[in-house]
């Protein structure tokens, strides 16, 4: 298999909770890969670390201590590098009992080195779109000018006129009606769906290799959501761009992803081909994934007037992570044989089928 475009290994991003000794372990050992021309979906509840993972890749974490370890290998046709290369020199960790106790980080040194590594990456190699598109566009500048700016920054087109034409071309490609007119619109004058289309146009205008879509449909009407998903699907087929798709909406993930990673409590609990992982009937499933799938309404359930199933319990507190499996408190598939292990030891990711890994004691013997 060819080298993956993006390979995140053991990424850890922490934030200070109420003191410098307590951490919110937002991302605690996430590893995942995005292959060339592949869409990888990342699902999980709020607070599972999806967005923080994406922001860590972009080097846009603000607030301490932020990213404290791991590696992010990026390999496109043009650029091959580790986006965290050498940054471990700025961090000193003191660990005990398998968990980080104190972090000493040279923030400004890290920041400077990270900016150097990210130069020419943001917007050019890796582009990003966000949830709540209207707030994500600058309200004081017309949409067209914002796209033109991206074109001029990254496409080697410096002539304003040419860049403008390119921007209009992209507005057309994301199917905005009368793009020439819309070029001069301000974000407040456009609907949320149109703003998201403009965001997509802006992200793709520099022809990046990787698109990070952070909850691209959240905050949009259901019909608009579906159209945005269609558009992403179409653009993916046309341009062959790789996508890291972050969403808590299983239906969006189902429609777009080739592979899926399920995040829980800052770690990947299941990682595998979308067809296997999202098929509720298939075996080898992490209890959390099973519960997630069971909570999605579908035709059968609606016809049977079944109550929607919620996952019992709360999203785990990542400040006081329990020593065992992070899903232990909410799990409904614990058997007496494995109960002790579940409570005491954090399980490893384990292959259950080719390319399909699950982090659960039920599959480790």
């Amino acid at each position: 298999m060819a080298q993956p475009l993006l390979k995140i290994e053991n990424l850890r991003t922490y934030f200070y909770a109420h003191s410098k000794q307590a951490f919110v372990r937002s991302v605690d050992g996430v590893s995942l890969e995005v292959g060339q021309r592949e869409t990888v979906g990342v699902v999980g509840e709020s607070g599972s670390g999806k967005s923080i993972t994406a922001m860590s890749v972009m080097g846009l974490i603000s607030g301490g201590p932020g990213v404290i370890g791991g590696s992010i290998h990026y390999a496109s046709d043009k650029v091959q590098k580790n986006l965290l290369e050498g940054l471990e020199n700025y961090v000193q960790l003191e660990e005990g009992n398998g968990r980080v106790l104190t972090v000493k980080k040279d923030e400004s040194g890290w920041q400077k080195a990270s900016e150097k590594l990210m130069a020419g990456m943001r917007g050019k190699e890796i582009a990003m779109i966000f949830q709540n598109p209207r707030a994500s566009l600058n309200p004081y500048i017309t949409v067209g000018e914002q796209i033109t700016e991206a074109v001029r920054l990254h496409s080697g087109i410096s002539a304003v006129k040419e860049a403008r034409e390119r921007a209009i071309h992209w507005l057309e490609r994301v199917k905005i009606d009368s793009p020439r007119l819309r070029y001069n619109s301000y974000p407040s004058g456009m609907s949320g769906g149109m703003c998201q289309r403009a965001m997509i146009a802006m992200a793709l205008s520099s022809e990046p290799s990787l698109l990070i879509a952070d909850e691209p449909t959240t905050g949009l009407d259901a019909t608009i959501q579906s159209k945005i998903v269609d558009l992403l699907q179409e653009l993916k087929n046309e341009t062959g761009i790789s996508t890291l798709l972050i969403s808590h909406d299983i239906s969006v993930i189902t429609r777009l992803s080739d592979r899926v990673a399920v995040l829980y409590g800052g770690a990947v609990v299941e990682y595998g081909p979308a067809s296997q992982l999202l098929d509720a009937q298939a075996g080898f499933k992490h209890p959390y994934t099973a519960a997630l799938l069971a909570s999605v309404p579908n035709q059968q359930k609606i016809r049977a007037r079944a109550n929607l199933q919620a996952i019992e319990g709360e999203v785990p507190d990542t400040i006081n992570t329990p020593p065992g499996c992070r899903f232990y408190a909410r799990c409904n598939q614990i058997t007496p044989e494995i109960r002790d292990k579940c409570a005491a030891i954090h399980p490893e990711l384990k292959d259950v089928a080719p390319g399909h890994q699950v982090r659960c004691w039920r599959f480790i013997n």
Partner: protein
Amino acid sequence: MKSIPLRILAITLLKELGLASLLLLGVSFVVFVILYAAPGDPFSVLLEGQLPSEQALAGIRAAMGAQQSWYGQYFSWLHNVLGGNFGTSLHSGLPVAGELVKVSLNTLYLTLGSMLVTLCIAVPIALYSSMRGHAVAISWPLTMLGYVFSALPVFWLGYIAIYVSVHGFDFFPLSSSGASDGNGWLYTLVPVLVLGLGSGTISEVIRYLREEMSRVMAEDYIRTERAKGASVWRHAFKEGLLLPVSEIIAAKIPFILGGAVIVEQIFNWPGMGRMAWQAAQDRDFPVIMGIALVAAIFVRVGSLIQRIVYTAVNPQGARD
């Protein structure tokens, strides 16, 4: 590349001018009523030290038109003002209009100069500490310095400035603004600096600008620009700096005019504040009315500028 929406600007301008004229009318009326109701008689001040006969007093009143009812006096004043005639000073006998132009230009220089001093000090401190956050050790002392300067009362700072410039070193020739040697203009810098530093605005401006800038830096669209690899500063400039600064200018003009009264007294500066002070003591009605009107115009122009900047920056917002 950028088209400033001229049509919307023109509409805003007309609206604001209409509002301003109503406001000025109101201000002049209120000031007039207060003056009329206040105790004391301008004519007895005028004839102080003499023992005028009742007849003489009545004669002066008749000559000044003070025998009309109070609203009659107001309307005749208004009528004259609309014709460009602000009357003559009861005290000096000079036409008020010409004097007003002279003193208001002097005060304008003082006000704008001190505003510039305030901004030149406050903006860099505010930007520095908002961009770098609390991570930078120096931002805290800088902010404290702003607070210390704001706590210095103008009347005290003014005398200290005079003392230092006269006795400490000879840099600022304080003798007179009409000094014939080339650096006479340096004289004008001292009151500008004193008003800019001491009028209590610096700390407020620092705090306000820093908070605005930090708020804007946390906006979603700034995150987008960072992810896009664009200059954050370019995108944060409008909402984070331009708008707050124009708001500060509009909001602080009244305070600075108040401070100018004191500074003009201390430095014997031939401006509106000193003239108002003098006129109030003399019960010089036409001068007080004229100055009140000009001060109101100053304040109004400040908010007009703010509206214009806001409209130019954010035509969408202005339309809503």
